[in-house]
C-alpha cells in the first residue's frame, strides 16, 4: 500500500441531488467513486491524484433496472452482477449479459458498475461494444437538468468524454428492438479469466433475403476509445451477403481500425485480429442464411 488514506477526503452525500450540489459548487474538484475497482487500485499504488472523493455507491437514484415495452433503463450504479442476473438483459440484450460475465471475477462483478466502466473511458472496456451495437442512449444529470445523447457520441478521445465536470451518468437506455437480430460478441485476451481485452468485436445484423438490411459493428481496442465501425458498416449495409461484399468489408475494416500500441498488444495485431473477428461473424451469417 503506497497510497496514504489520510491524504484523501471521502464524503458520502445521502442523495443524488446532494451529490450534484457538491459537483456544482466546485466542478472538477470531486472525484466520484462507486465500486472502487478502478480508483482503489490507483489508491493502493499511490497514483490516486484526487484529494477529494465523493461516494456514489448505494445511492438509490442510480440503482435498479426498469423496463417498458419499448425501453430497458439501466441505472448508472447497476453492477455487472446485477446485469448478469436480470432476465430482460438476458432475453433482449444477451451480448450485454455476456460482456458482464467477462468483467474480472465474481468479486469484481459484485462491485464494478456499468457507468464506472463507461466513464473510466478505457478503449478496452468490456461493456461499451455491446452498448454501441444496441443503439444505447446515455443520460447525464447535473443540478441544472438532464440531457441524453446517443452513446457513440459520448467518447471523444482517449479517456475523454462529453461529460461536464458538474455532471454524473444517470442511466443507460436501450431500445428493445434487437430480439430478431443476429448477434456476435467475441473478446480476445491472454486467457479466459481475469484478462483485459486485447481486442473485441460486437455486432448486430438483420438479413432481408441475402441483403444485409441492418448492421451495427462496434469494437474495443480498435481505436483510442470504444467505437462504432461506421465505414465498415457502410460497406455492408444494403449489399448482398456475398464473398465480394465480405472481402470489401474486411479491407475497409483494416483501413478503418486505428488501434493504439500499448502494454497489452500492438496496433498491427489488433487490426488484423479485429478483421478476423469480422470475418468470423460474417461467415456465421452466411451459414445462417444458407441454412434457411
Amino acid at each position, binding site marked *: *500500500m503506497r497510497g496514504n*488514506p*489520510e491524504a*484523501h*477526503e*471521502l*464524503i*458520502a452525500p445521502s442523495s443524488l441531488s446532494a451529490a450534484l450540489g457538491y459537483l456544482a459548487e466546485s466542478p472538477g474538484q470531486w472525484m466520484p*467513486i462507486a*465500486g*472502487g*475497482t478502478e480508483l*482503489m*487500485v490507483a*489508491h*493502493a*499504488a499511490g497514483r490516486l491524484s484526487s484529494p477529494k*472523493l465523493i*461516494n456514489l*455507491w*448505494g445511492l438509490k437514484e442510480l440503482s435498479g433496472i426498469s423496463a417498458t415495452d419499448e425501453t430497458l433503463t439501466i441505472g448508472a450504479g447497476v453492477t455487472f*452482477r446485477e446485469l448478469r442476473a436480470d432476465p430482460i438483459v438476458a432475453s433482449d440484450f444477451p451480448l450485454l449479459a455476456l460482456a458482464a460475465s467477462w468483467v*474480472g*471475477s*465474481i*468479486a*469484481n462483478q*459484485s*462491485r464494478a458498475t456499468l457507468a464506472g466502466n463507461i466513464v473510466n473511458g478505457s478503449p478496452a472496456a468490456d461493456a461499451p461494444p455491446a452498448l454501441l451495437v444496441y443503439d444505447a442512449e446515455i443520460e447525464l444529470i447535473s443540478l441544472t437538468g438532464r440531457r441524453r445523447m446517443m452513446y457513440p457520441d459520448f467518447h471523444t478521445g482517449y479517456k475523454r468524454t462529453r461529460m461536464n465536470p458538474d455532471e454524473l451518468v444517470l442511466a443507460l437506455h436501450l431500445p428493445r428492438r434487437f430480439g430478431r437480430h443476429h448477434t456476435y460478441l467475441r473478446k480476445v485476451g491472454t486467457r479466459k*479469466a*481475469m484478462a483485459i481485452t486485447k481486442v473485441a468485436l460486437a455486432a448486430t445484423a438483420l438479413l432481408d433475403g441475402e441483403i444485409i438490411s441492418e448492421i451495427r459493428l462496434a469494437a474495443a481496442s480498435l481505436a483510442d476509445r470504444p467505437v462504432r465501425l461506421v465505414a465498415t458498416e457502410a460497406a455492408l449495409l444494403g449489399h448482398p451477403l456475398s464473398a465480394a461484399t465480405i472481402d470489401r468489408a474486411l479491407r475497409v475494416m483494416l483501413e478503418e481500425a486505428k488501434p493504439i500500441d500499448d502494454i497489452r498488444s500492438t496496433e498491427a495485431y489488433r487490426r488484423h485480429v479485429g478483421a478476423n473477428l469480422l470475418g468470423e461473424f460474417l461467415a456465421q451469417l452466411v451459414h445462417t442464411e444458407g441454412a434457411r
Partner: protein
Amino acid sequence: MTQAAWPTIDFTVNSNSVSVAVPPMKRLLNVLREDLRLTGAKEGCGEGECGSCSIRMNGQLVNSCLVPALQAAGTTIETVEGLGTRADLHPLQKAFLECGGAQCGICTPGMLMAATHLLAQTPNPTFEEIREGLAGNLCRCTGFIKIFDSVIAAAQGAELHAR
C-alpha cells in the same frame, strides 16, 4: 486532519457490532487487519486480481482491498474468522484439510470465502461453475485441482447431511 476528526464507522463483522474511527479512504482490508485484528484476509496484489483479501459484504463476495472503509458503514461483513472454530470447523474447512486444498495458506482464507459464497448461491456447482466462482482467487501451491476437489467434497458432504 487529526485523528480526532476521523468519522466513526459502524458495521457488523461475523455477527459482532463494531465501531472504528479511521480515515474514510482507509482500505477495509487494513481496517480488518489493523483496527479489528482480524488477520485472516491477506493482502496479495492489492489490486483486485488475486482474491486473497476476499470477504463477503451484505452477502456479496468482494475484495476488501478495493473497499474504502466508509463504504462499509452499516454493512454486514463475513470474514474467514466467522466460518468455524478450531473445535468446530466449517464443512469447507474440513474438506480443504482432507483434500489438501490448503498448502502455504496465503490464499486459503480468500478461497474459503469465495467457495462459501459459491455454495451459498449454487449448492451443487458444476466443475465449470466452481472454476468460475474461484477464478478471482490465485493459488501458487496446489495447482487448483485439490481446491476444486475440496469444494466438490464440501458440496457433496452438505448434500449427504441434508438427506
